[in-house]
């Protein structure tokens, strides 16, 4: 339109000669290849450590929620039935697992399972230890949460809240402002009511889902 527009950018900002397209392509291809090589190399080096940490975290969680079992068996949920053999084809991270813990004498202490449901903001992932025969809880541990710092994240750190669950029988109900009475009441955390209720809901749903599966395993699979 105006003279300035027709002339375009000032001469100083325009490269003196334009670069051929093949050179741009070669530059980006080389940069991409180098970047890819670096990322893949470091990924390969760090992968064992990352997997080791994940396995350690899982082991520590099982040990904690089943109150120090001497050993445990791992069961895999495939096609709505439990099996002792790990499925070969499926992506292992998505296969639901149950950890059956035993004491030194071989008595079953309980079963640990993981469950995730939305909390106040995002998924809350718990590991829950319970006795499938009676529905009595042994304990739970928060594996992952992104609740409000200082409020909702107390479900992970508040020992008075976490300590109530051992010995309570699912399904649980949350009560506010007073201590929960046995067998099934637990007191929610002040300032973290929604997150506390999420924990209770996750436990109730998980226990309801896994008890029939574990009963079926006791009747048939465990033989």
């Amino acid at each position, binding site marked *: 339109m105006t003279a300035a527009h027709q002339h375009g950018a000032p001469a100083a900002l325009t490269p003196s000669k334009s670069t051929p397209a093949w050179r741009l392509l070669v530059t980006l291809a080389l*940069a991409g290849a180098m970047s890819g090589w670096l990322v893949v190399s470091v990924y390969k080096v760090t992968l064992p450590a990352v997997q080791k940490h994940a396995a350690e975290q899982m082991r520590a969680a099982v040990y904690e929620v089943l109150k120090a079992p001497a050993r445990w068996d791992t069961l895999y949920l495939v096609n709505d039935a439990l099996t002792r053999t790990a499925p070969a084809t499926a992506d292992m991270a998505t296969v639901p697992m149950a950890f059956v813990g035993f004491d030194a004498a071989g008595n079953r202490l309980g079963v640990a399972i993981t469950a995730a449901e939305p909390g106040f903001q995002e998924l809350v992932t718990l590991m829950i230890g319970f006795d499938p025969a009676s529905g009595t809880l042994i304990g739970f541990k928060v594996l992952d949460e992104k609740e409000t*710092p*200082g409020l909702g994240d107390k479900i992970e750190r508040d020992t008075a809240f976490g300590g109530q669950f051992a010995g309570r029988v699912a399904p649980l109900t949350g009560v506010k402002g007073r201590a929960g009475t046995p067998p099934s009441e637990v007191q929610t955390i002040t300032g973290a009511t929604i997150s506390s209720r999420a924990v209770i809901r996750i436990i109730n749903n998980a226990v309801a889902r896994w008890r029939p599966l574990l009963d079926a395993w006791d009747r048939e699979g465990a033989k």
Partner: protein
Amino acid sequence: MTAVVSDQSAGQPAFVPGAPPPASLGADIWRGISRENPVLVQFLGMCPTMAVTNTLANGIAMGVATMFVLVGSGLLVSLFAKYIAHEVRITSYILIIATFVTLADLILAATFPDISKALGPFMPLIVANCLLLGRAEAFAAKVGPARAVADGVGMGLGFTLSLSLLSAIRELLGRGSLLGHDLLGPRFEPWVFMVMPPGGFLTLGIALLGLAGIIELRRRRAEGAS
């Protein structure tokens, strides 16, 4: 380019397209910590500043990770700048930055899984921290590798120190602890507000106010002396 020369010959340190004025490596490092502090002076990287300064450990980890990316990308950008065509330089710089961010993310996950978990999505988001592309384009591409690394170290230290300052204040008041060690005892009621996003804005505002006060005091003192 003639404009650049005439500005410099006139002795005016104006912001001009072109190479930064020559300086010693020590000055390159000190500038990032002080006069051109990325957070408190340049206001770059505000997103991680607000998001991860709720505990001191998170603030330090984010600062060190950013410094790693600044140094690594600065070095590579400086080495390859003359081979990268003008038209694809932004693409190439971002690719280099993204590579180092991924490396930092992987290394952190392998070495400090708890901190990696706490930083969550904010580690990959370092790619979008304008501090990195800003230093690559404005500084590293126009100087030699040694100065680019010095600038990365300086900017990284400046970023880490600013984040440490903010996160220490927020963790101390918001949780009563520093690096997870309880300092204020059981009778202290934590100001939960401080570890939530509004606390971040308040702390940054007070830090900037304090800095502006110091600068103003020094200016008045200099005026009084002259």
